[in-house]
């Protein structure tokens, strides 16, 4: 197992390095450089001044040298500085990262809470009305773009019925939980959750729908296996056959794609954060693109890539734990 983890970590590092390299390379290809962007609002600047700044920023160095400098910076925790905010990118990102993580994890939670029971019920009641309803739900779920669902949710639950706020974040969840735990009342937690509901549902619905299908089909496979028949032949109570013998096996295929799905959700935050004015790094990235703030784009992409790769790494390790057959390969 140790060797496996080591190999996976190494591979993850290589992926991150490649991302870094490609993004830096691509950013260099774009017509116009950071100095042009910086000076866009400053027409008094002469060509000579610009040239000087370019020199200072190291933009005249060969690409590989620039890349090396960037890597060295990253290793030391320096992700460069934003052209727009004139502050280090790391700070900009780290203040917004918790909001994105909160949204991503919460929508994953919602997706799982919806998908696990629905997937299992539809499998156990195959071809019933419940099953049919479940597959209609799944079809609608995977056919609705997350931002469209977001808009519809706002239209219905914020504009029409006014049960949930249309946008923004209240206290970050960890702050709200802290307040609740330290006896400052549950109001803050309730408010945070109310703000979280619509964006999380909009983000998590497609994943929930995909999981309903997957859990249903793997549950159907599992309940027809010989080992389930043998478990019944042993005279185990139905709940034991289900909980101990069927459930875990049926979830294995889903667990293997959880990493991909978290990545999908993370990608989805770019759109959902914009729809709900959610102060995370997805919205920051979209804004950075409009501002042509390339160092910031680069930093956000790097951080997202690292998160994505880490998630995949963790899921692989969990998968090895849940399915002992893989452990010894």
């Amino acid at each position: 197992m140790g060797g496996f983890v080591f190999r996976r970590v190494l591979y993850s590092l290589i992926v991150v390095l490649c991302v870094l390299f490609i993004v830096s390379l691509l950013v260099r290809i774009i017509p116009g450089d950071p100095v042009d962007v910086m000076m866009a609002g400053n027409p008094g600047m002469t060509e000579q001044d610009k040239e000087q700044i370019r020199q200072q920023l190291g933009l005249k160095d060969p690409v590989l040298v620039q890349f090396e400098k960037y890597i060295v910076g990253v290793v030391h925790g320096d992700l460069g500085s934003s052209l727009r905010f004139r502050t280090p990118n790391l700070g900009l990102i780290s203040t917004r990262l918790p909001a994105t993580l909160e949204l991503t994890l919460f929508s994953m939670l919602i997706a799982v809470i919806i998908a696990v029971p629905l997937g299992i019920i539809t499998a156990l009641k195959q071809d019933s009305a419940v099953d049919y309803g479940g597959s209609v739900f799944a079809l609608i779920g995977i056919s609705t773009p997350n931002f469209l669902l977001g808009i519809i949710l706002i239209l219905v639950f914020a504009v029409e019925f006014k049960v949930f706020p249309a946008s923004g974040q209240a206290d970050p969840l960890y702050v709200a939980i802290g307040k609740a735990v330290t006896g400052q009342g549950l109001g803050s937690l309730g408010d945070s959750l109310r703000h979280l509901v619509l964006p999380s549902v909009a983000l998590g619905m497609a994943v929930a729908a995909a999981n309903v299908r997957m859990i249903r089909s793997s549950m159907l496979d599992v309940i027809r296996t010989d080992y389930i028949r043998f478990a019944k032949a042993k005279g185990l109570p139905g709940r034991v056959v289900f909980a101990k013998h069927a459930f875990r096996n049926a979830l294995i295929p889903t667990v293997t794609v959880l990493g991909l799905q978290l990545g999908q959700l993370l990608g989805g935050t770019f759109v959902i954060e914009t729809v709900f004015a959610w102060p995370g790094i997805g919205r920051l990235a979209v804004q950075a693109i409009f501002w042509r703030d390339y160092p910031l784009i680069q930093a956000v992409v790097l951080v997202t890539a690292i998160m994505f790769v880490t998630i995949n790494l963790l899921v692989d390790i969990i998968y090895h734990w849940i399915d002992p057959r893989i452990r010894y390969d």
Partner: protein
Amino acid sequence: MDSLQVTNSAGDSASAGVARPKKRASLSRDYFAELRGSKKGMTGALILAFMVLVAITAPVIAPHDASSQSVYAQYAPPLFAGGTMDHILGADNLGRDILSRTIYGTQISLSIAFIVIFIAVSVGAVLGAIAGYVGGIVDTVIMRIADFQLSFPFILLALVFMAILGPGYWSLVIALTVAIWANYARLVRGEALKIRELEFVQAAKAIGVSRARIIWGHILPNALPALIVLGTLDIAWVIITEAALSFLGLGIQPPTPSWGVMLNDARGYLYESAWMTIFPGIALFMTCIGVNLLGDWLRDTFDPKMAKL
């Protein structure tokens, strides 16, 4: 998988002896008859056919020009909400006809989807076949690139590309193609590896058939069913991602009437003019439903192995 399972779990006894209809794809199969027999597949095909028809005939059926503005029609409600025949589905903040814009939006959505899928499938299939058949360093290089891409969120990749290429139709096509070609490369490579060692390919090789011919004549046809299934299901992804990027302002640029652009335009008027959101939303949703229904049917029919994907 190939046989009709008469009983779910009762084992050999009840199913043996029953004539087993072949379920594998073969040229002699009448796919149209099968499609007509499936409610799901037929619904999907009809929706998609309708959308394609709308896209092709857009200039004829659209009552107005997609971008012509009219001060008199600003915020005009749709017919059922007290509007006039002139703007059946209402008009937007600039007085542009929603119906016409939605109709032209079909053109954008479908054309991008078909172009992207066509290029991605072609490029992916050829590279995958080469990787699988030739092997060695070529295989390693191609598949490392593919692995790398697959270990990275699509949308982020597309976003970076859009940031660099600048928004627009063809940037979008490139970004989306780059984001998905690897799926097909993987699929075809797997097929190529399987088939490379089969007797008839070995025999073809022995009698001096060229590599290109083996790839073209044997490997690609075998991978075709899976490619069609995956390609169809991915159309929905392309349509959704195009709309999402355009919605963010990073894809198709206004005033071109992409559904994503229309939905973005509508954001400020959610309360007063909900129809600006509803109709492009319905068009987008229905197209995806159609594609997914058809794709699911294709998957069940062509390639039961993939049923779990």
